[in-house]
């Protein structure tokens, strides 16, 4: 995207919504294995509501777009991922403030703030088999990339790290969220929230690289 302005941010959000539509069956399937089988449906409901709001009235800054995403997800998702992703977008929105466009450092900082928000909300640590297991490595990778890369580089690094990390949640035993009810039986399945985090970051990277 040519300068990460409000329009580009909104376009990236629409792309995230599209990604969720594509993957919701798989996400629901993952959640059926170690949860209540609604993660895909939850996110579809949330992102459809986001797109409706963007269609109705697209905000004028990247931060305002992110805030709209946050409040909409919080009100519509209906599962743990609602307040978690909601808090992530809310912290990211606060971090970018009323900047007209976002540079690589800001995007990386926003990602960090988002991950911190998820930790503050859900109290999960790396290794608990949650979306944090995808978020944290993504933040690390983004920070390194931000030192000399573009926004696209930052998001590409984040997405690649999250994808890798999401797949690595399979051998973990869940210690937070519903999957923790399963104890050892949660081993052998990828965490749905880690996987959706990876998809969302991949979608952002695709948007940023201009291909989306």
């Amino acid at each position, binding site marked *: 995207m040519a300068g990460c302005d409000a329009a580009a941010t909104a376009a990236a959000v629409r792309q995230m919504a599209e990604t969720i539509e594509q993957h919701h069956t798989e996400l629901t399937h993952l959640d059926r294995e170690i*949860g*209540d089988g*609604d993660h895909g449906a939850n996110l579809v409901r949330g992102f459809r509501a986001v797109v409706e709001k963007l269609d109705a009235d697209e905000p004028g800054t990247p931060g305002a777009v992110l805030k709209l995403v946050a409040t909409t997800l919080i009100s519509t998702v209906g599962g743990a991922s609602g307040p978690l992703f909601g808090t992530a977008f809310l912290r990211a929105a606060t971090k970018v403030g009323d900047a007209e466009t976002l540079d690589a450092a800001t995007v990386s900082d926003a990602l960090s703030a988002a991950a911190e928000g998820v930790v503050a909300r859900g109290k999960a640590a790396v290794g608990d088999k949650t979306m944090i297991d995808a978020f944290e490595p993504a933040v690390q990778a983004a920070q390194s990339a931000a030192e000399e890369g573009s926004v696209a580089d930052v998001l590409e690094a984040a997405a690649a790290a999250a994808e890798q990390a999401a797949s690595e949640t399979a051998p973990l035993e869940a210690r937070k969220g*519903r999957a923790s*009810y399963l104890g050892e*039986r949660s081993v052998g399945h990828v965490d749905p929230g880690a996987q959706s985090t990876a998809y969302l970051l991949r979608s952002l990277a695709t948007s940023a690289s201009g291909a989306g």
Partner: protein
Amino acid sequence: MSVGLVVVSHSAQVAEGVVELASQMAPSVRLVAAGGDGSGGVGTSFDLISAALDEADTGDGVAILYDLGSALLTTEMALEMADPDVAERRVIVEAPVVEGAIAAAVAAEGGGGLSAVVAAAREAGGDA
């Protein structure tokens, strides 16, 4: 098959709602609600509970969750009046009714035996 579950509550809504919640995490477990006085009111019903115990019993045992002391009294009565061979594999669990039922259902879904299911319910504190 797996261990079955009976949720005894003074409220039909609570019993049915708990079954709804637990079934999401345990779609293949036999979960039976025994809520209310059997005629639309708040209370417990010996007949409803007795029928629910039979319905939940696959032969692998039944874990029974209840909400209040008087539900316990009625449930104990139902166990005592049943065939002792059958009553033996039906266990009343001292656990929070919602949290315990979900934990028990998940344990049963995973193939846990009666004692594992009972233990899962007892340990449930609702901090997941």
